[in-house]
């Protein structure tokens, strides 16, 4: 220990003083922003409100993924469509598969219409299944719209010799190892639901650290195949099809197979479902995929600002500059806020017996 205690010279005092002043300024500016009042506005007043402000898109994932890239493109093109032309920035708040961000914005992080959130639409499914940690009600979010639609598909490595889904169905069907993350993730639950609805002999291998490690494991033939959105197969996981096609897509969600050379032997899940219950189960799980990359603001945001942002969102997704740039990255399938809200409400109104079936399907660890 020192005997003399700490002595501050002039320079130290200046440095400490500056640091303190900076801190006070940061705290001060933060709280004055929080105090921004919510009053009743018309369209012109909304312009007045947004002028000079910064609108933040909170992304529930780390930078670099699909959610982030899509949000950054929207942030680039949206300002000119919001009255008052505020600047729009992206704030990544990763955590718990975007649950942290969804909870944060729902609970009213600046519920004045300057905070937009984008999170995994599968979270709505988690709400339906009353999973832990969900602190929001999807029906009450003010949805602005969504920009993508994902249709999950399951495929196996061509070295398995399996080219048709029939080969993995029924009593003589071949058992295939399908890769999964932890239960509750999209790729795991998709495989589980296909197995429950169609009776495919999928053995799900849980525990991979993400869709990329699962794909690597398929490539190295540690496992036989995987289920993931068709959009991922055609973008991030293109290596399964180019330069050489080494993955046979067996089944794809929905009632018909999209026309695509890589899908020549694939079957539409709903078309081969054995009965109505199975079909309902498949439709249920497909629903959140229809509103991939959704955007929403908190329930407490004043209605006219919601209307302002919805209009701006609708204009952005048809803006030719945005469309051109977005389609370079992946296919744009926009839906407006009304549509997204309807799909969410319909999903959350699912009859309880189906919810129980779904829970049962997802709980199974070994196939039929």
């Amino acid at each position: 220990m020192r005997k003399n205690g700490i002595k501050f010279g002039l320079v130290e005092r200046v440095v400490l003083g500056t640091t303190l002043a900076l801190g006070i300024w940061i705290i001060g500016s933060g709280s004055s922003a929080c105090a921004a009042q919510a009053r009743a506005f018309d369209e012109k007043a909304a312009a007045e409100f947004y002028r000079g402000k910064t609108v933040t898109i909170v992304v529930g994932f780390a930078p670099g993924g699909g959610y982030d890239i899509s949000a950054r493109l929207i942030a680039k093109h949206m300002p000119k469509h919001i009255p008052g032309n505020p600047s729009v920035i992206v704030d990544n708040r990763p955590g718990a598969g975007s649950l942290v961000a969804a909870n944060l914005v729902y609970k009213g992080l600046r519920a004045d219409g300057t905070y937009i959130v984008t999170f995994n639409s599968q979270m709505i499914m988690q709400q339906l299944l009353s999973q832990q940690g969900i602190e929001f009600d999807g029906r009450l979010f003010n949805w602005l719209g969504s920009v993508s639609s994902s249709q999950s598909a399951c495929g196996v490595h061509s070295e398995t010799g399996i080219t048709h889904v029939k080969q993995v169905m029924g009593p003589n069907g071949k058992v295939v190892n399908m890769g999964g993350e932890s239960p509750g993730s999209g790729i795991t639950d998709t495989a589980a639901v296909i197995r429950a609805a169609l009776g495919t002999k999928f053995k799900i291998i849980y525990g991979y650290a993400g869709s990329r490690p699962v794909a690597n494991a398929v490539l190295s033939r540690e496992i036989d195949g995987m289920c993931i959105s068709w959009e991922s197969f055609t973008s991030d996981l293109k290596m399964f099809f180019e330069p050489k096609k080494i993955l046979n897509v067996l089944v794809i969600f929905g009632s018909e197979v999209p026309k695509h050379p890589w899908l020549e032997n694939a079957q539409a899940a709903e078309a081969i479902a054995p009965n109505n219950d199975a079909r309902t189960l498949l439709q249920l799980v497909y629903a959140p995929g229809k509103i991939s990359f959704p955007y929403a603001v908190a329930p407490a945001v004043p209605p006219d600002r919601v209307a302002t942002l919805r209009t701006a969102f609708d204009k952005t997704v048809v803006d030719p500059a945005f469309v051109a740039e977005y389609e370079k990255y992946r296919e744009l399938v926009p839906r407006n806020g009304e549509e997204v809200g309807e799909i969410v409400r319909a999903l959350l109104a699912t009859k309880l017996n189906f919810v129980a079936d779904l829970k049962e399907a997802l709980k199974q660890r070994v196939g039929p």
Partner: protein
Amino acid sequence: MLDAFCSGFLQVFAFSTFSLLLVGILIGFVVGILPGIGGVVTLALMLPFAFEMRPIDAFAFLLGMLSVTSTTGDITSIIFGIPGESISAALILDGHPMAKQGEAGRALGAALMSSLVGAIIGAFVLAASIPIVAPLVLTFKSPEFFALALLGITFVASLSGESKLKGMIAAGVGLVLSLVGLDPQSGMPRYTLGMATLWDGVGLVPVTVGLFAIPEIVDLWMKGTSIAEKRIGKLGGVWQGVRDTFTYWGVTVRCSLIGTFIGIIPGLGAGVSQWMAYAHAVQSASDKSRFGAGDVRGVLGPGAANNSGLGGSLVPTIAFGVPGTVVMALLLGAFLIKGLVPGPSMLTKHLDLTFAFVWFIVISNIITVMLCFLLLEPLAKITYVRGSLLIPGILLLVYLGAYAESKSTFDMGVTLLFGLIGLVMVYVEWPRPPLILGLVLGALIERNFFISYEIHALGFLLKPIVLLILLIGVGVLFYDKLRNYLAHD
């Protein structure tokens, strides 16, 4: 082949390519020095800019940036004892004690030179191995990853200094911490105290920064001096450090190869290889007494390994589209956006581009190291500045770093908590690196054990490569005993 090698070299110096390389280097330089803000976040943030560029320019920009972060991250680790990057943490163990003894210049010289050597070795392994690496990458599956991660744990012995038992316990604490989060098998939250923030586990960055930086800051404050307690020579021996790199040539080269090899294998990365390299440096030394107190070999090993990893990890990414780390997954995104399909075409049609990657890594490292040598004097002088002047700034950087990764104030709390734990550990003389290693490897061990068990039951333990790696592990554990035994015989 030679054509492509040369044309790759020439392409680097096209005006737009070279200037974007320089911009990338500049960004990487700053990012590397700032603690917490790592290569992953920066690459992700810069990716949209790369959308607009020509493919070769985009990769000049991105690789220039990536090549530099681990080099300049080492600087922060040495001078302040704060990991500038999470892959630079191992540099603190000997680099910072050297800075305290006034040898900042020597440590920096050694770190920079070994970084350069590591990067060049990694880059040329990339160039040489692309055609022949396929079997290696595809034979490494979950059982082999499990065995490798277990092998990593055996290095705890070398990271523990005098007390192996304390090291084991610290590693055990790290392993337990790695259990926090969603259980990868059942998806149920485990030890998360009801907080969704903890679903993804305890963050490596806040733990590392807290554990290493806070005790240093407190120490600096208590002493009331500058970081360097005494002055040696003009610059604390920069050239001595450069010479050390070549004096201990074996350590530098072997650690570069460790970094490259771990980089090639998907899933591990420099977060692991830096510790393995450090442990190797300790283990291969006949006189271990100065490790942890400022042995230059403890700087050379991780300095070389964290830089050679980039070349290594590019191998599977380019050759198969199998990205081993998050950084590589992001880079692969850039590939796809640029319309390049990883795989054989990168070795035929786009071979010159592949070789340009090699040159980007080499050239940006050379530029960075030269730049650093120019800046060494002011950098090393920071260690002579009074501590009370530095502390506010360092604290700001520490908390900024802790906050930056997930933007949660929770992580700042984690930093503070582990700062306190770190202080206690320093006070009672418990080694801190094993805790970090346990945290890094715990999740890998758990995941790969269960996946291997699901697929092969316990039979996976008998696979040849698994057996080989486990045997190496046993060898590492008993190496010292064996050597002593033989010496006494």
